[in-house]
């Protein structure tokens, strides 16, 4: 009944992983089968990244790895070695000032239950990095791997478009 094949857990079978997470150098121990998602949530206390399906279907666990959006449930923690990981916890500025995407999600009503929101935000960040002025169709296509069940996507699309406009007006706001 489980999504994963049962396996015996070796008592000493962990590897040391070194990477940067939200700009800070991090070292942690991870079993070889542990996903990056579980490592973030269980070993590193970064529970902002959500587990909606654990098999790569819903996008709730989207993080950026060297700037590329990936489902953290489909990547092993040991694969993070030497990589640059960004999660929703790193989106706001050092003094807590909200990223334009966060501001617009808040203003437009793009978050309801909020469970898909961290993944949506990270996917949107990647989208705007590659397409700074996306059309509505491009936003919808860009977010097609992230399921939301509350909003009908209307206000999410609106928020991403507004954030794109705000970022192109003052590009310095996206520091990372």
């Amino acid at each position: 009944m489980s999504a994963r094949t049962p396996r015996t857990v070796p008592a000493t079978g962990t590897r040391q992983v070194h990477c940067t997470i939200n700009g800070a150098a991090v070292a942690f121990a991870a079993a070889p089968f542990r996903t990056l998602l579980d490592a973030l949530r269980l070993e590193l206390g970064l529970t902002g990244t959500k587990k909606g399906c654990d098999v790569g279907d819903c996008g709730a666990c989207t993080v950026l790895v060297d700037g590329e959006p990936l489902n953290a449930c489909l990547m092993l923690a040991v694969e993070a070695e030497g990589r640059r990981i960004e999660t929703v916890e790193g989106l706001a500025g050092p003094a807590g000032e909200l990223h334009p995407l966060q501001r617009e999600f808040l203003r437009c009503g793009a978050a309801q239950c909020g469970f898909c929101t961290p993944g949506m935000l990270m996917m949107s960040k990647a989208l705007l990095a590659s397409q700074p002025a996306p059309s509505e169709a491009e936003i919808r296509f860009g977010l097609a791997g992230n399921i939301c069940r509350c909003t009908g996507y209307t206000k999410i699309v609106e928020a991403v478009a507004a954030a794109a406009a705000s970022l192109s007006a003052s590009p310095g706001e996206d520091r990372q």
Partner: protein
Amino acid sequence: MSPELPGSRSGGALDIVGTSVRRSDVVEKVTGSARYAADLRLPGMLFARMKRSTVAHAFIRRIDTRRALALPGVKAVLTHEDVPRVLHYGSPMPRAASCTRDQYILDRKVRYWGEGVAAVAAVSEEVAEEALALIEVEYDELPVMTTTEAAEAAGAALIHGDRAEALQGNLVVAPVRFERGDIERGFAEAELVVEGEYEGGRPTPAYMEPNACLCHWDEHGRLTVHISTQTAFMVRGAMAEVLGLPLNRVRVLCEHFGGGFGAKQDLFQSEFLCALLARRARRPVMMEWTRKETFLAGRSRHPVKIRLRQGFRRDGTITARQASLVYNSGAYGSHGPGVTAVGTSSLTSLYRCDNVLLEGRCVYTNSPIAGAYRGYGVVQAYYALDIQLDEAARQLGMDPAALKLKNAVREGDLAPSGHAIVGHGLEDCILRGRQEVGWTGTKPPPTRPPEGPLRFGWGMGCEMHGSSAYPGIKEQGNALVKVHEDASATLYTGTAGLGTGAHTALAQIVAEELGLAFEAVNVVHGDTDVVPWDIGAFASHTTYMGGMAAKLAAAEARRQLLERAASRLQVLPAGLEIRGGIVRVAGTDRTISARDAMWPGHGLPSPHIVAHGTYTPTKSYSFAAHFVEVQVDTETGQVEVLQVVPVHEVGRVVHPIAAQGQVEGGVQQGIGHTLTENHEIDPVSGRSLNASFVDYKMPLAMDMPPIRTLLLETAPDPGGPWGAKGIGEDPIIAIGPAIANAIFDAVGVRFRHYPITPEQVLRALRMQREQVRDA
């Protein structure tokens, strides 16, 4: 009629209610700091998993856990032999007629594929999963019946053979019957009779947050449960009853919540097992479901079969309406009795008819449990009713919208609950929507001609839905408002925050009533040890009922605040008004700030004010008409919704953006249910065929059309704060028939079921061509 206190702020201009203030729960959601149940960690916490049946109907002959218990890292294992055998309501409405008492924590019989048969707590999820594989279960299999026809066949095996109530066969509850007028006379007066069979599939809520709970016990035998639930006090009651604890030894918390849409009112075996594992292992235990488990063991909408027959006069008057509805409850009753009563009785209304005869049944089958899901039995019934009105209009040579307008329920007509309807909300929605889309004749003028294989069509559908579950359940909302000594205020509410923005709406209502700035009010919720009792968040009643309780508490707090201000100003309280935190002697420029009025040290008995509000609502109805344009690809069978104009009459809009959000999300789920979503169960084995987000297709961002929501405030209900009524469930109801009617308009093929898949569209188009050729 109005429960508002004398002197409360009613009528006149409102400062805060009706504006899209910044929501109180979203900053933490965009920064990732919002804690959901599965985000919590406690020292020594174990991880639990459930072993689920691999057959759909069987007695457990033998279950052996010895190898699992011997696995290093396993701390506790439970089977039906280890847990209290207490029959309980899977849906924890306390002894309500809307629910059935037919579940054990674990039973020696399994009734659906994927039912829990054992649970394990271990040091990690991986060890727990490995232990599950080591539990040996042998079954004595019984015949599997996944359809209501099979379960109602003569001689069918009984799924709940040991139930105390004497019910025939596999019925969940005694059939319901609603009768009015004289059905035979009604059909005798008819000049046209339209009859059809309508069928609804098994859409599932597919909330994004899989069920999760974390249980721990303290040294005094007190149980704390962090859980993703809509009904914390109901969970507390059910846990206490089944585990034999007084209520003050169970504390249920739910701070943030990742969607439920009705389904997370129930208990799912796992909460009890989590608590019992924690007790046995003497450590905190986290039980988090996989996505697959949410399909197998969550709650779906009831699959349904409806026979509907109506008589019409040539002028469109409906003379008779007869229907039988059979709801498939799956393996347990859950909300089946309530859904059957609410769904069946909904056909007494929406479109006027004096002669009505309706019968509804709810039947156990060996399939996943159906339960409460946004629209609660009404989605299915109005799908049939509204499509049949469209069929009748075509046969009468009338505009479907005009036929619906002619028959729309009006002020004073009886609603399904037996209440007189307030206002002309449904007519207003139809008229405003027609105007918005330019509907003249039988639809809006075509914006595009047929193009290659593409055909275009318009359709509309209507609905009405009650706020609160009255008369099925007598509900109650409670609120406490504290005004602190600096004139900031806190609302304590038992209402759950489902992500709808309800707590923001409640804070708006309190600020408005108290005459304080919105920012001066915060909300405390989600802890049964702290907040006053509340029945939970469901039945589109949070703003209506919880909002009114909050308004009543705030009105009492305001009265006390003005008394203090009056004594400071040496005037009578009756002559005072308060707005934006400033108290003024009406008609003068004599003022005192609420803060100065509150400040202690003036011989006052207490530095802060505490006021309680309690509200037991009856019922109000909201209305909607949805107008939809579709595109049908006659080569692929693909149906695409091009635009939706939902028009909703809600009495009073408290937070426009949040209200629009409810409509947009409901439309999304409704489009999914109508075109793509169906949890499919193999009729032979009872096995789930598509329990994943890859195989269960929901609308994605690129599938969703533009939605132009119109919110009307033309029929305010005196039972809600400043007339506000519910909006949570309504948006999912009218969209389905609107799409089916639009498909007919586009290609002339009538569908009377959902989901309407491309294969079925293609097959129907082929049959249509063959019929034309043969003719």
